């Protein structure tokens, strides 16, 4: 199993390159263009991360995060979610960069291979910025009556958080 994980990334890269060559794609040019797009993403998230990591560091230093985690701990424990992730779950539906900042802070504090670090990573990877997405989609389509879109999307988010903690316990 360890060997599969270790080889997963090189195998994906090699197969994609071969697949591209077979379909007459200038693989190297595509790689370079795409990588340039990665820099644009970084430039776009850096200013937001500076603002948000400052706020997250302040919250952590002030003891506010521990207080919130303590308040939500009994509820989260029954759901099987580590209470340390409460801040991440609160910002996840509202702002993608805030969630990334909060998650990165958890991953750095507890270690990327710890239970909490992995939970935070899986939560980030398996949920979306729900309210932002709904606002953009309904704004573009000129929708005033959103009906059940918000409750249904929030159900998916809550299920995603619980499933993230469950899946991490399952695999590690």
């Amino acid at each position, binding site marked *: 199993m360890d060997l599969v994980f270790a080889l997963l990334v090189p195998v994906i890269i090699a197969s994609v390159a071969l697949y*591209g060559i077979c379909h007459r794609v200038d*693989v190297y040019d595509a790689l370079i263009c795409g990588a340039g797009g*990665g820099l644009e993403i970084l430039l776009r998230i850096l200013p937001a991360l500076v603002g948000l990591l400052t706020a997250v*560091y302040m919250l952590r230093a002030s003891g506010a995060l521990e207080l919130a985690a303590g308040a939500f701990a009994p509820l989260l424990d029954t759901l099987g979610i580590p209470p340390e992730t409460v801040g991440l779950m609160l*910002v996840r539906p509202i702002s993608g960069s805030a969630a990334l900042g909060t998650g990165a802070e958890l991953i750095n504090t507890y270690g990327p291979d710890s239970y909490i670090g992995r939970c935070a990573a899986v939560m980030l990877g398996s949920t979306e*910025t729900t309210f932002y997405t709904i606002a953009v989609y309904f704004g573009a389509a000129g*929708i005033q009556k959103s*009906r059940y879109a918000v409750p249904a999307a929030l159900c998916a988010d809550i299920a995603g958080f619980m499933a993230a903690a469950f899946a991490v316990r399952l695999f590690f």
Partner: protein
Amino acid sequence: MAMAFIWTGMVVLSLVCAILTGNEAALAAATLEGAKAAVTLCISMAGILCLWMGVMEIMKRAGLADKIARLLHPLLRRLFPDFAKDKDVMNTIAANVSANLLGLGNAATPLGLEAARKMSRKTPGVAGDSLCMLVVCNTASIQLIPTTVAGVRMAAGSATPFDILPAVWIASLISVTVGITAAKILSKVWRN
């Protein structure tokens, strides 16, 4: 504007909490550390993020997105029964979902918005069942390779930043399934 209130709230709450709990010195140090950590994080995740964006671009140019879209058609017809016969809308939705799967958020959003605009012509101003379903599918992250998160894990010193992939897939699958089920159930009980 929402973020303005949230950010101000976070900062003010920290200040009040720090004074109440006697953590003033730590708070002052934290304001500087946070800003520095953001830059360090961006630099240390830059390599892996750029590399994967490059690999995704190869997938896109090799027509992998179109291939996934064709595979998705039978499933999507069931999720969007109101538009199953509308080829134009179905193709746009398929392209949106396959771009999401490949983690091409920049490509996925315009496609999704186009599909949403076309759907809303049937029921102007009101989100029909299929439009609600489209929004739920786009708010539940369905991504094969979560590049950014892997970048953060790598930056934090993980030896195998991608070993969370199976867990991410399972969690995403459960989240999407619950979202779709909730939308289907609510579509039956929701008035107007």
